[in-house]
């Protein structure tokens, strides 16, 4: 691999042992994937935050980094943690977990990383620009950055996104290269997709069928950020799809090279129904509703409020919405929250149903409008989940 003088110095240890290791890591990952150079990144989104997903070994790694007092060299944001940093007791998080979680966040913060604790940095002002090279790691954030914003990022791991945030470079391979961003399959969307859960079902269906292959969706009438984030998240969860195009809606779709299309498939009403049926597992009582995978936006919160109207959540059922701390400071959201809390809706920030231990441990029967959440919550076989649209959920759990 070709390295600039400055990059070579980093690799040779002139900036310390930790920087040398992290540079080595990025260079090797690049070499194995055929990269011939490193490219600068604009910013990084770093996963590996919840104590549930990183465990004890992260602390040994932090020790190595703090010995050399390393800092990030580009704007960097953290993925959700395992709990709401303020209301963790209310969630049912234990003291020991909370203490470890706080230590993790503090260590990241000391490296200069912003503790946004969200999978949707683009909803709180950190929108990628077309053509920007990034090192993002949460799978839905990666796919939205690529597809909706036309930025370029591979699906990084926690360690590689952190390494890139510190050294400021990533290896030039995969989705950083234009030729690897072309679609291979056309999906003609015949089914009606209105609800967020419909977009989620479409994404789940595609990812399961065509693992890792970039699709080109056509006949989708509306594709705003809230809809696209549901589509992208589900596709990344079921099929590790990190990029996609939607005709007339996403920024690369118009000019993208369609000469590599090998197949056209149709997503019809029966395909949609099949996904809803797959996640229709609750016959008895519902314990918990979870909304906000990916994290909720202002529009999502408004929709919950308007769908609920004058009704309240039934006794004995919990209704949890997940978002970011930053979004909850928005004046409009604040107003809605006071109203929603009175009706039995709880909003937690900094975390979600996938990375917090309490959802899986404490609640058996769960309703959600996100196929990604449904996928992760049912993976271990201990929880039952039904996938429904928000309006169907509200009809079922309110009075």
């Amino acid at each position: 691999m070709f390295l600039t003088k400055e990059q070579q110095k980093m690799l040779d240890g002139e900036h310390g042992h930790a920087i040398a290791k992290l540079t080595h890591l990025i260079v090797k990952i690049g070499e194995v994937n055929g990269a011939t150079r490193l490219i600068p990144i604009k910013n990084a989104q770093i996963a590996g935050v919840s104590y549930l997903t990183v465990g004890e070994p992260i602390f040994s790694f932090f020790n190595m980094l703090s010995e050399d007092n390393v800092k990030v060299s580009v704007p960097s944001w953290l993925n959700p943690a395992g709990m709401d940093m303020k209301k963790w007791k209310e969630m049912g998080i234990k003291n020991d977990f909370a203490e470890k979680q706080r230590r993790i966040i503090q260590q990241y913060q000391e490296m200069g990383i912003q503790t946004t604790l969200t999978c949707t940095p683009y909803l709180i002002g950190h929108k990628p620009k077309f053509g920007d090279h990034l090192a993002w790691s949460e799978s839905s954030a990666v796919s939205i950055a690529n597809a909706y914003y036309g930025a370029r990022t591979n699906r990084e791991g926690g360690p590689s996104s952190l390494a890139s945030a510190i050294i400021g470079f990533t290896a030039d391979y995969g989705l950083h290269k234009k030729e690897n961003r072309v679609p291979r399959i056309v999906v003609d969307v015949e089914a009606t997709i209105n609800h967020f859960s419909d977009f989620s079902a479409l994404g789940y269906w595609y990812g399961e069928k065509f693992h890792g292959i970039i699709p080109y969706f056509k006949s989708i009438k509306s594709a705003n950020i809230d809809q696209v984030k549901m589509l992208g998240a589900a596709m990344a969860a079921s099929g590790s799809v990190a990029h996609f195009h939607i005709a007339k809606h996403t920024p690369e779709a118009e000019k993208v090279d369609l000469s590599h299309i090998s197949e056209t498939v149709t997503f019809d009403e029966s395909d949609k129904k099949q996904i809803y049926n797959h996640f229709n597992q609750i016959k008895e009582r519902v314990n918990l509703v979870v909304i906000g995978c990916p994290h909720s936006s202002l529009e999502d919160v408004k929709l919950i409020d308007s769908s609920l109207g004058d009704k309240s959540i039934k006794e004995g059922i919990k209704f949890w919405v997940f978002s970011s701390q930053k979004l909850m400071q928005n004046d409009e959201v604040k107003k809605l929250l006071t109203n929603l809390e009175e009706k039995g809706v709880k909003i937690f920030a900094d975390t979600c149903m996938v990375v917090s231990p309490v959802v899986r441990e404490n609640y058996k029967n769960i309703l959600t409008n996100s196929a990604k959440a449904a996928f992760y919550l049912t993976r271990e076989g201990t929880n039952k989940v039904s996938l429904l649209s928000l309006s169907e959920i509200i009809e079922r759990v309110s009075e």
Partner: protein
Amino acid sequence: MKTIKVRTIVEGTVEGIALVSPIPISFFGGVDAETGIITDSENPLFGESLTDKIFVFPRSKGSTVGSYVIYGLSVNNVAPLALIADKAETIVIAGAILANIPFVDRTDQDVTISIKTGDKLIVDTTQNIIKIKKE
């Protein structure tokens, strides 16, 4: 003695006993970073220790924070002597570099078939080869 050609990911020449996982390994949730013991109940090596063995596996799976587990093994002095995979992926590349554990891949044959648990191996990254001395 049989020789297999490899690609070197992390350098180092070591001699030791092979421990072979026939199925992909998830380091996160599948290996205890404090003891080096395999804790994945679906793996035939369940309960065995990686420590001071040459660990052979087809590829890795699971969470990318598996890299931190590999690093933890070395900090806790329970690391394997070397790692051999059919295919190097980001999780193990990152972990092996952080932990400085010799790591080779892209063999000209399926390593988890040609190497058996208990075989004496020499991993030689100066020549990009593994030598197998059958027991």
